[in-house]
């Protein structure tokens, strides 16, 4: 084995993964309760969803939820890839790809939230 430890993972990345995981659990509980229990038809019509998004608190919660899910899923997938012991160059490439994908998906999601919110008829 090599003498210098590989730097592809560390406490802070792991901490971010579990912290996002715990926050996801809290928001998921609210998300599922609202979507499947509170809303009379389970938020299944376009009109209902748009009305739901008028609440700024909902908008903030869903936006944060998306960000946390993206962080948790990409860090998790990255961990799975690291289990395959990829070469250092591949790991760096994956880091860049995941950063770009994470940013684009988050921006798309937030755009979607505001786009839907503005669709009041």
């Amino acid at each position, binding site marked *: 084995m090599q003498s210098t430890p590989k730097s592809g993972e560390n406490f802070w990345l792991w901490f971010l993964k*579990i912290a996002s*995981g*715990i926050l*996801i*659990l809290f928001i*998921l509980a609210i998300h*599922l309760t609202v979507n*499947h*229990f509170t809303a009379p038809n*389970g938020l*299944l*019509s*376009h*009109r209902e*969803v748009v009305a739901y998004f008028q609440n700024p608190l909902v908008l903030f919660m869903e936006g944060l939820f*998306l960000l946390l*899910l*993206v962080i948790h*899923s990409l860090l*998790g*997938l990255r961990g*799975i890839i690291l*289990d*395959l012991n990829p070469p250092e160059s591949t790991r760096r490439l994956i880091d860049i790809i995941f950063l770009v994908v994470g940013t684009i*998906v988050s921006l*798309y*999601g937030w755009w*979607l939230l505001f*786009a*839907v919110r503005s*669709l009041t*008829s």
Partner: protein
Amino acid sequence: MKADKHNSKGFWDWFNPAGRDAGGWAFILNRLSALGLAFYLYLHLFVLGKLAQGPDAFDQFVAAAKSPLYTVGELLVIAAALYHGLNGVRLVLNSFNIGVPRQKQMFYTALLLTVIGTIIFAARMFTAS
């Protein structure tokens, strides 16, 4: 010596339950649910793009999604999320060295709660439609 003499099947061994104990099953289920949920997350975001296309596109999709096949798929997502979340609590506690000697019981509890939760959701979803 041959290069493949590391004597493992690589990542296939992640999912090989032969000879493994409860913790091994917990790991296999955690990894499978992780991959499934990650796939679902990005699919879900893509589908929700229909919301921006206006009421017709979205409501048409929702109507199509009321078929039993979609409901079963949704239930799978719920089961995976419940398990991944509950097992996640076990992993976090264990990582701070809380309850490690009881990790098997914690796994069985997570599994039991997942089954109960999934049944409750299934009952609601199938009676609602």
